[in-house]
Each structure stands twice: as structure tokens, then as C-alpha cells.
């Protein structure tokens, strides 16, 4: 895989050089001002550069296939070269199809370049060069199909691949024409000729820079997607390095165009010095360009920032809040980290046990910061069962649990607890904070991220509450027997009707034992088993209801995985009214605004 990066870099440089030399030959060196001996020297050296670039492009494209096949099949290169692996890659994968097309294009390019050398074809020189340039455009543009853009789908794929292809063509036209420009300036002693070449070159260069910036932004939107990802990932770092090189190159190009080129038509010795400066800057640009293409090769095998773990480099971030103006708040390396586990009931239940063992002595049994040890602390523990916790990102909570909080008694648990248990704690703390907000609600309507779970009705398929395959809202009913039996039978009767309104009734026992679990055929359509920790987690949303009143409790979860309403204890109306309310919340009640700041599980 690593050798592949080097081979990609070589291929990018070679194909850009070949294409740029053709651009120079067709669009910059022509129409000719004069056909003297100097021009012939120039054309010969550019032709030689072109021949070498095409040869290297062809060899590196062959090597790319071999290395890619070895990486795809997960076998050593020596084994990938023998046997059927190469054939399977070419025949059965999208990369293989693109490889074949580009192989044909590079062969065509090579054939045209060979013909171009023979004097017998001199009369058709212009037509040959135009055809070779077209083959070059195609060969460089189709590189887009070998990259990350190929993994997009639908209209995104078209936009991303088009932007990528234009980016490649513009880069090749600029970078590849730099060395031919140097050769041409060296070959000519005529300042007017040099002036014309420099001006034609910079017209193409400026157009390329414009296209590179515009299409570069489009590509970044797809592959980086967010500011934290730009600043906090390896991919973002490479992109910064690439942009820095690009900025230096543009500065060199601007100096050539604005300062040195006009001096080519001044009197005295100025033109000679100006031509030398232009050539020196162009060489420097070409060298930096090779650096840029090498970074591109590394980006090509890196995880795009949009999908990678984010390590935030700054001690602050800008918080955007709907209620107040954007403000600067503290941030930590893990602030934008993607949790390695989802916001599931099983994780929350594990977090609950960890909380009791590690946190409750200070933060209190229910998180209010009133544990037995809190009395002797001068800095009081934070009230975790409170809305302010939700202002922080998951990664902030994770950082505090891992490293403690300086200047407070909050200790670091990074040494005592592994990474996943610490994320379990984050999930639990988020749940009691969300539950504390919900408990303040007098009506059934609530608005919180629903802890995820999977369930099975009877021995049917395992189902989730949200996701692409979920077509209905979930009405989760937690029950205890015998007190909930009548209610369950009524709900079982109402279930087919609710199903037609795209509401699925899922009844789960509060305690998983023989006394509370039912094997009643009339309840076969709603009686479910669910992920461990479900009842325990959802009861957190009813902590203020006296235990005697608990059960049944009901929660309406929409298809996007948001809790829309909850009923329980004395707040649960008779079944007819209850069903009416459920229907209303599932349809009319969708207008309620959702908090946007919450990070969804990765």
C-alpha cells in the first residue's frame, strides 16, 4: 500500500508532465513566430521530455495495477503477479475497468508521440499534436475515477467526479507546461519571442489557478465536510500542506507575470535578467508542483477527513447556539471525536453501573452533585442531571472523564477505565441530563435523542427503531404483570389499526423474569424481547414518578430516532384517549423543533 503511494506520485507527475508538454506544444509554442535553429533545439528538448514522461506514465500505470491488485486481494505482490488475481481485478472491479480504459488511452498517447517524432509525418504535425493533446486530456481526467470520488453515488458522484477531473486537467496544464517554458526561454535569444511565450503561458496558468481554486473547494466539501475535520485530521493536515505549497506557487507565478514579464520588452540588459528570473521561478514552481502531486498521492490513500477520527488542535472552539450569539468556549483534543460506540441502551446501562461504582459518591445517586463525599469538597461536584450538560459535545465529557478537570477535585479516570467504558459513561451522563429536561415537561410531549435498541417480536427478525429500513414510528410500552395485563390486551387490539398509521407497538417487560414475562397468544403481535438495558435506560426518563405508579410506561419514537412523547404513572390516559394522543404525536406533533447541537452517535 505504501509503495503504491510512491507509484501514484510518480504516475501523477509523469502524466501531468506529458499533458503539459503537449499543451505547451499546441497552445503556447504555436502559432510560431519564427522557425529558426533555436526553435528546433527547443522543440527537440520538449519532445524528449514528452517521450520520457509518456514512458514513465505507462510503466507506473502498469505498476499501479500490480500493487493495487496485491492490496485488494491482501496477498504479497509476488503472488498477485502470478495466478488469476490481475485478471480478476481488471475483469471484475470498477478500478479494473477504469484501468483498462486509461491503459488504452496511454497506449494511444504513446503511439501518437512516437509518430510525432518521425519526419515523414511533419505535414500532419498539427493534427498529431491535437490528437495527442486530446488523448492527454482524457488520460489525466480519467484519473478522477480512480479516487475517492468514485465512491459517491447519484448526482454527488457526477458533481464530484466532474470537479475532480477539471481539477486534474487544470493542474496538468499548468504544472506540465512549466519545464517546457524553461526550455523555450533558454533556447531563445529573442526577447520578443520570450515575451510572447511568457504571456501565453501565464494566460493558461491564470485560468488553471481559477479552476483549481473553484474545483478544490467543491472537492473539499465532499471529502472534508466540516471545519473540525479540516483542522483535526491527518487528511486536513495534508490538505493544508498542499494549499501552502499552492500559495507559494501562485506567488511565484504572479511575480513572473506582473514583475518579470513586462521587463522582457524593456531596453538594455533587463530582458536577459528577466528571462533568467522567469526560468528560475518556473523551475521552483515545477519542483513545488511535484511536491503537491506527491501529497495528492498520499491523500488518495488516506481516510477522507469527513470520515476520520478528529483530533482538535486548539484549546478553544466557536460554539454556535440558537439562543445566543456565537461564543468562544474551551475545547479539547477529543472535543469533536466520533464515539466508537453508539448511543444504545446497552451502552447506557453499562455506563449506569460504572457511574454507581466511580461517580455516585461525589456526583450523587441521581447525578445532582449531592453524593456523600460532596459535603467535604470545597469545589462542589457538577450537577450532571441538568440541561447545561447538553451544551457540551460528547468529546468534551469524554475528555473530562479521561483527564479530570484541573483546579477541581474531578479526578482522571483514563488510567482506571478503558476507552469504551469511558464512552459508556458519556452516554449515561447524556441520558440523565436529557431525562432531567424531559422530567420538567408537564405534557406528554418531549424532545430528546432516543437511546437506540433492537427488538424482536416472537422469533421474528431483529428490528431497529431508526434507519433506512425502518418504515414506522415505534410505540415502546414497558410493562409489569399482573397490573398491566388489561392495558396490554387493549393495546394488542388497537395494534393493527396503529400499524396502518405506521406506528408499531412494541411491548417489553420492565423486569425480565417469569413473573413479568407473558406467553399469551393474544399478545403475540406486540410482545417483544429487546436489547439488554432497555427497561433500565428508559425508566431514567421517569425518575420523578413514584415506583408504585410505574408501569405501564409508553414512549413514542419517530423513524429518525427521536423521542416525541412519553406517558406513565398517573399521566397515562385510558386506552382510547391514549391511542388518539399517540396518533396525534405521530402525525401532527412533528412540528416541534429539534435541538441541532446534539452529536449523533457515529
Amino acid at each position, binding site marked *: *500500500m*505504501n*509503495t*503504491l*503511494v*510512491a507509484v501514484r*506520485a*510518480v504516475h501523477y*507527475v509523469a502524466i501531468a508532465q506529458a499533458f503539459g508538454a503537449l499543451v505547451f506544444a499546441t497552445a503556447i509554442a504555436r502559432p510560431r513566430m519564427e522557425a529558426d535553429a533555436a526553435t528546433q533545439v527547443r522543440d527537440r528538448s520538449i519532445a524528449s521530455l514528452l517521450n520520457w514522461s509518456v514512458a514513465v506514465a505507462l510503466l507506473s500505470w502498469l505498476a499501479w495495477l500490480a500493487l*493495487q491488485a496485491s*492490496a*485488494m*486481494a*491482501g496477498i504479497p505482490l509476488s503472488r498477485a503477479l502470478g495466478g488469476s488475481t490481475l485478471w*480478476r*481485478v481488471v475483469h*471484475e*472491479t*470498477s*478500478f479494473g475497468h477504469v484501468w483498462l480504459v486509461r491503459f488504452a488511452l496511454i497506449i494511444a498517447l504513446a503511439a501518437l508521440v512516437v509518430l510525432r517524432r518521425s519526419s515523414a509525418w511533419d505535414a500532419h504535425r498539427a493534427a498529431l499534436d491535437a490528437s495527442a493533446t486530446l488523448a492527454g486530456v482524457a488520460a489525466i481526467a480519467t484519473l478522477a475515477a*480512480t*479516487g*475517492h*470520488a*468514485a*465512491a459517491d*453515488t447519484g448526482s454527488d458522484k457526477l458533481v464530484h467526479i466532474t470537479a475532480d477531473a477539471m481539477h486534474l486537467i487544470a493542474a496538468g496544464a499548468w504544472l506540465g507546461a512549466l*519545464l517546457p517554458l524553461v526550455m523555450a526561454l533558454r533556447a531563445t535569444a529573442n526577447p520578443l519571442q520570450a515575451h510572447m511565450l511568457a504571456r501565453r503561458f501565464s494566460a493558461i496558468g491564470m485560468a488553471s489557478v481559477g479552476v483549481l481554486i473553484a474545483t478544490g473547494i467543491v472537492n473539499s466539501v465532499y471529502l472534508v465536510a466540516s471545519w473540525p475535520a479540516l483542522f483535526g485530521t*491527518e487528511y486536513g493536515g495534508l490538505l493544508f500542506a498542499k494549499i501552502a505549497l499552492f500559495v507559494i506557487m501562485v506567488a511565484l507565478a504572479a511575480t513572473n507575470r506582473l514583475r518579470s514579464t513586462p521587463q522582457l520588452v524593456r531596453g538594455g540588459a533587463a530582458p536577459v535578467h528577466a528571462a533568467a528570473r522567469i526560468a528560475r521561478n518556473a*523551475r521552483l514552481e*515545477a*519542483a513545488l508542483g*511535484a*511536491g503537491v502531486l*506527491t501529497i495528492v*498521492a*498520499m491523500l488518495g*490513500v*488516506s*481516510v*477522507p477527513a469527513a*470520515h*476520520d477520527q478528529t483530533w482538535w488542535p486548539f484549546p478553544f472552539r466557536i460554539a454556535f447556539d440558537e439562543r445566543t450569539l456565537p461564543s468562544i468556549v474551551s475545547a479539547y483534543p477529543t472535543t469533536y471525536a466520533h464515539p466508537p460506540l453508539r448511543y444504545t441502551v*446497552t451502552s447506557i446501562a453499562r455506563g449506569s453501573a460504572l457511574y454507581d461504582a466511580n461517580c455516585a459518591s461525589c456526583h450523587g445517586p441521581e447525578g445532582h452533585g449531592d453524593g456523600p463525599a460532596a459535603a467535604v469538597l470545597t469545589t462542589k461536584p457538577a450537577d450532571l442531571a441538568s440541561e447545561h450538560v447538553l451544551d457540551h459535545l460528547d468529546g468534551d465529557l469524554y475528555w473530562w472523564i479521561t483527564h479530570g478537570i484541573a483546579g477541581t477535585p474531578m479526578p482522571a479516570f483514563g488510567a482506571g477505565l478503558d476507552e469504551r467504558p469511558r464512552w459508556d459513561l458519556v452516554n449515561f451522563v447524556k441520558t440523565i441530563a436529557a431525562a432531567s429536561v424531559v422530567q420538567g415537561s408537564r405534557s406528554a410531549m418531549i424532545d430528546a435523542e432516543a437511546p437506540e435498541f*433492537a427488538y*424482536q417480536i*416472537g*422469533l421474528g*427478525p*431483529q428490528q*431497529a427503531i431508526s*434507519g433506512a429500513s425502518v418504515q414506522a414510528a415505534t410505540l415502546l410500552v414497558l410493562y409489569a404483570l399482573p397490573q398491566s395485563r388489561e392495558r396490554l390486551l387493549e393495546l394488542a387490539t388497537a395494534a393493527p389499526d396503529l400499524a396502518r398509521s405506521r406506528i408499531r407497538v412494541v411491548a417489553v417487560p420492565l423486569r425480565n423474569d417469569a413473573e413479568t414475562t407473558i406467553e399469551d397468544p393474544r399478545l403475540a403481535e406486540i410482545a417483544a*424481547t429487546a*436489547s*439488554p438495558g432497555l427497561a433500565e435506560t428508559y425508566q431514567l426518563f421517569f425518575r420523578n414518578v413514584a415506583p408504585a405508579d410505574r408501569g405501564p410506561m409508553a414512549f413514542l419514537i419517530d423513524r429518525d430516532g427521536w423521542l416525541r412523547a412519553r406517558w406513565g404513572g398517573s399521566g397515562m390516559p385510558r386506552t382510547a384517549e391514549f391511542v388518539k394522543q399517540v396518533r396525534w404525536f405521530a402525525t401532527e406533533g412533528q412540528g416541534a423543533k429539534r435541538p441541532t447541537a446534539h452529536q449523533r452517535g457515529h
Partner: protein
Amino acid sequence: MKPLWLAVWVTACAAIATSPARAHAFLDHAAPVVGSQVRGAPSSVTLWFTQELEPAFSTVKVLDTQGREVDRGDKSVDPRDRTVLRVTLSPLAPGTYRVVWRVLSVDTHVTEGDFTFTVVP
């Protein structure tokens, strides 16, 4: 390019060639759910990925606690939705099973991973 620059660049490429590389295409979700308990033996394991897969180089195996393969060796990528990889299972006894996958996404990157699920009576 001057020979000096060429030498610098070739050295840089060689240095890169020895550094570690990374790749991507992630498991989005699975049935049975990752880490879950299933009542009754499932007849297949289905994995949904975040990108389209190359069927020729994408595999999934289901192993019991002794490391024996319990799938039918008929893994396939759904032709209508190429993000979906599936394998059918022999009848499973209650117990814990490990799903091991290695996939190639259409942007030429390989990823691998594993998870468990438990069959309960």
C-alpha cells in the same frame, strides 16, 4: 526539473513508501445487530456498509467460539444495493458467534473488522 530536485523528490517518495497507510469503507450496521442477543437462530447475517463494495474482493465469515466456520460460504453483495453484504448460515445452536469481514470499496480501499452476536433459546 534539475537533477538535484529530482533526487530530493525521489527520496521523498521512497520515504513515503515506508510509512504506514490507511484506508476506508465502514460498517454502518448489521443484522443481527452488532453485539446483540437474538432469540432463535438467524438464517443469515447481513452487513450494511457506508460505501459500495467490489463483490470480487469482499468477504464475510461467521465463526463459532471454536473458530469453526458456520456460514454456508455463499457470501454475496446485493446486486441492487451494492453496500450490502450477506451470507447464509447453517442452523445455529445457542451461543456466541463472531462475524469477520474484509471488504473492498469501489474507491479501491480495503477495510476489515469483526463483531459478535449471541443466539439465545
